[in-house]
């Protein structure tokens, strides 16, 4: 089985989010970039397929040279090859088309992407990619088994889960649950050394056009001070929730 894992290069979850150039650009100053957490759960599941079922695992990112350390980290975790599509990621539509070319060229059986990136939260690349590849698609995937060309996937739905069966080729929008948090691998020194020698192929884009542009950003209005309520005066809380917040 040939697996392609799509990797977004995103600010670490602890990052403070600021903007620059008149609130038109994300301020990368002092920000540490990581593998998008939803993608990392998928990558770790891909490593399981590699160990247990002899799958090969490639990773891909659409972005500039600044994303290469993130791809190297994926190689250090155990991916075999990395591919960087050498263009600026502009929107989900454009990225999905660039990824579709890579996926078709590599004849992958399974493409694992995160359900969304934690920066733009578009939540559209996995579905668009599947549609472009004419592959089956399962979103918010929290469990995946593959046997030959048959796949069993668990999808998180609002208020529960459903079990789906389908065939490869398959694209999933993955998230936590594909593997547990404790299964995530921190690359060891040997992995890091090996990653330096693994191929990181830079390919030129097909030049797909975006359909949307992210023009401007705004931070939420600062929060007013908390109203502290004495623990022996819970009636006041109920009063506030009823009369001020009108939520009960």
């Amino acid at each position, binding site marked *: 089985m040939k697996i392609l894992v799509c990797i977004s290069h995103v600010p670490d979850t602890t990052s403070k989010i600021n903007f620059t150039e008149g609130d038109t650009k994300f301020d990368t100053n002092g920000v540490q970039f990581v593998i998008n957490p939803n993608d990392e759960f998928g990558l770790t599941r891909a490593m399981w397929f590699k160990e247990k079922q002899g799958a090969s695992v490639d990773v891909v990112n659409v972005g500039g040279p600044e994303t290469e350390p993130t791809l190297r980290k994926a190689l250090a975790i155990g991916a075999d090859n990395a591919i960087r599509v050498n263009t600026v990621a502009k929107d989900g539509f454009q990225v999905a088309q660039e990824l579709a070319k890579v996926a078709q060229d590599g004849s992958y059986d399974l493409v694992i992407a995160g359900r969304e990136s934690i920066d733009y939260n578009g939540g559209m690349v996995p579905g668009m990619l599947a549609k472009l590849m004419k592959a089956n698609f399962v979103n918010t995937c929290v469990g995946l088994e593959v046997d030959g060309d048959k796949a069993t996937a668990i999808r998180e739905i609002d208020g529960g889960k459903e*079990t789906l069966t*389908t065939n490869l080729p398959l694209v999933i929008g993955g998230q*936590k649950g594909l593997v547990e948090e404790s299964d995530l691998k921190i690359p060891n020194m040997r992995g890091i050394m090996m990653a330096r020698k693994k191929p990181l192929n830079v390919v030129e884009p097909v030049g797909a056009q975006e*359909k949307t542009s992210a023009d401007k950003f705004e931070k939420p209005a600062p929060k007013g001070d908390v109203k*502290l309520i004495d623990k022996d005066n819970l009636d006041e809380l109920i009063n506030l929730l009823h009369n001020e917040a009108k939520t009960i």
Partner: protein
Amino acid sequence: MSVLVYIESENGKFKKASFESASYAKGVADQLGTSVTAVTINSEENESLSTYGVSKVLNVKSDKLSKFNANAYADVISQATKSEDAKIVVLGQTANDKYLAPLVAINLEAGYASNVVALPESTSPFTVKRNAFTNKAFNFTTINSDVKIIGVAKNAYGLKENETSITVEDFNPTLDESDFTIHVESVDKATDKVTIADAEIVVSAGRGLKGPENWEMIENLAETLGAATACSKPVSDMGWRPHSEHVGQTGKPVAANLYIAIGISGAIQHLAGINASKYKVVINNDAEAPFFKAADYGIVGDAFEIVPKLNEKLKEFKANNA
């Protein structure tokens, strides 16, 4: 040229989120000087959409579509869009909506903006405000394609009543056999519990509770309030509570009217996940916990003492205000 809205139903019935999508579509239609057409699948209460400004319903009745199927449903929406010559397509952001929308976008070669929180800033160019950086910021996105798809964030625009006269028509889409290659084997859904996605109120607890055996008081409080239960990331990582309850940047976002955090310190990732909730209450014995900076109301004290007392008082309040 009407605005098309997809209205999700479950067992024939609409949900609150469906009416929010309809309300939003009406808002956009007013900006553009046009009307709203809804597309529904196996719905039994189409006329109720007139309350939220829908003038026309295209209702699909099909046994083949009795179970949700993303590709087939996406085809229905795409065909309805073409049949109405709609340029704006509105969906919600339920799990199914998020599954569908990117497929519709490819069908229609349309730009898609998800997590939209307000009516368009302008309609030419077509610019919408959306949540980004997992609620740590807003982003203004311009959609440049001919057909534009908007995913409306839950509990952001709200319900707006706008009584309109309505007509309901049958709509017969062409279904492609190749859409039916994913089979639902089983569904595991608690029908007696309020889900985080639907909840108006969410009661959430963290490590401060010391162990999974102490969750009864959280469940009792949630029951009194008709709320969903949730938890912090460490609690789900330690297996005290299921992953499906994990709220935060890598878990579920919560956009409730009221979020009550008990024994949760308020890590930045957790606060991002609940930022879209309207009112936040924190109960924590550490007055320095970061959550107090993000909350509207706070109580410093021992949760084991406060929560059962609060529950009793709320029961009394509910009994007197029923």
